[in-house]
């Protein structure tokens, strides 16, 4: 009978790893906290750089799960390490054994309301990137009604020690560029401003996206972080920032402000780390055995991790890591059997 491998987290990473493990002859078990598989991908409409439908990617990932066991709405009670591997016990009392454990519990979007001065949850017309994706997917929103001026704020909850995240979230710049272009498509008469500190568009074709945003869509990039947002008497927003390239403070009146919330560790990471004795980085993400040579392996034997639980990643990066982790688990088990550990 095929060996069970427990995967904690049923997002793109967990799903892809499960498929690879199944193809390698294992019987993966996905444990997902949420009611449905797919993770954050469920909340997204289109993916940069080409604007592929997230739905399609999700469909691809969640289909063909034959030979994979998965459980959603799962609450893990304990995880125990034994000589034979790991035992995961759920709150329902059910427990699973596995010679190796793969953590793919992903990330959490920075809660925008923590950046109080931007007034998310207080001012009507402040929304987040995730809200905007929902709008793109559904096509309607209570707040978005023919905005004339739209602002995008990069680095909300990223590169900001005051809210406890010094790190760059890596994917928000590209998302902001993508979303700004999409908004301009929807509202061609709108003027769109993007407030950035540095534009960190690192991937292939991302610079083309940026160029298109400037040239085709006329998105106006303002180098400067938004310092505060307030509501005006007519309900529009007043945004204060400095145009650091002109060395002048500016005050902008806008109809819609989109906060590009960053990527922070998932809540469960800390407790899982404690139970499994994994070291966390200063940023709260798992620390792998070696950031360059062994990014998918924990210090402890038989414990693997992949995807955004070890830091912000794009979807293709996550999927590659998922496959890599699966192969590493396979190699690890083969080696262990040969040496008779298991």
């Amino acid at each position, binding site marked *: 009978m095929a060996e069970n491998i427990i995967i904690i987290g049923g997002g793109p990473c967990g799903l892809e790893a499960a498929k690879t493990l199944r193809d390698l002859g294992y019987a993966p078990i996905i444990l997902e906290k949420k009611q449905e598989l797919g993770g954050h991908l469920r909340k997204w409409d289109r993916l940069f750089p080409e604007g592929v439908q997230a739905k399609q990617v999700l469909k691809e990932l969640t289909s063909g799960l034959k030979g994979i066991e998965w459980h959603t709405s799962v609450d893990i009670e304990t995880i125990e390490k034994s000589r034979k591997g790991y035992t995961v016990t759920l709150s329902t009392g059910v427990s699973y054994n596995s010679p190796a454990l793969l953590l793919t519990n992903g990330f959490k979007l920075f809660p925008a309301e923590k950046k109080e001065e931007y007034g998310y949850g207080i001012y009507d017309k402040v929304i987040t990137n995730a809200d905007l994706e929902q709008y793109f997917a559904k096509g309607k929103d209570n707040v978005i009604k023919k905005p004339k001026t739209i602002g995008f704020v990069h680095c909300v909850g990223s590169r900001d020690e005051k809210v406890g995240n010094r790190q760059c979230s890596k994917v928000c710049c590209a998302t902001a560029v993508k979303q700004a272009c999409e908004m301009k498509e929807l509202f061609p008469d709108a*003027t769109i*401003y993007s407030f950035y500190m540095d*534009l960190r568009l690192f991937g292939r074709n991302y610079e083309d996206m940026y*160029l298109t945003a*400037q*040239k085709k869509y*006329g998105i*106006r990039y303002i*180098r400067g972080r938004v310092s505060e947002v307030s509501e005006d008497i007519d309900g529009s927003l007043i945004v204060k920032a400095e*145009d650091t*390239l*002109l060395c*002048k*403070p*500016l*005050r*902008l*009146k806008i109809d819609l402000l989109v906060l590009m919330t960053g990527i922070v560790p998932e809540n469960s990471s800390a407790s899982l780390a404690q139970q499994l004795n994994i070291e966390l980085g200063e940023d709260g993400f798992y620390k792998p055995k070696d950031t360059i040579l062994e990014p998918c392996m924990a210090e402890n034997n038989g414990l693997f991790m992949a995807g955004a639980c070890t830091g912000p990643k794009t979807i293709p990066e996550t999927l590659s890591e998922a496959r890599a982790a699966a192969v590493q688990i396979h190699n690890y088990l083969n080696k262990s059997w040969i040496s008779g550990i298991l």
Partner: protein
Amino acid sequence: MDFGYSLSKSSTMKIENLENSKFKALAKLEPDATKCIGCGCCTASCSAGVFADMSLRQILLSLQRDCQDKYLPMLQNCMLCGKCMLVCPRGINTRHLILSICKIYGIEQ
């Protein structure tokens, strides 16, 4: 009454109902006007910059924010030598951009 002090003018650029028509006309005349990434190569290599203030980057940005009055006089120093065109990483046609600005905008005396 003279108090010996008075209200000072705000340095804040207020971007509300921005006067955009001129910039739109500029972008139509020279589409490269929207392509600047603010790297400053044009300013750094400027031949006229050796002798006087000249920053195409700042001028272009000020046009986008409609606060060009202070910046436009710099344009008058340009010798149109075209070095900025060669160093621009975005390949902006800076000479035509400068000529187009000179066509569309004016300097208040």
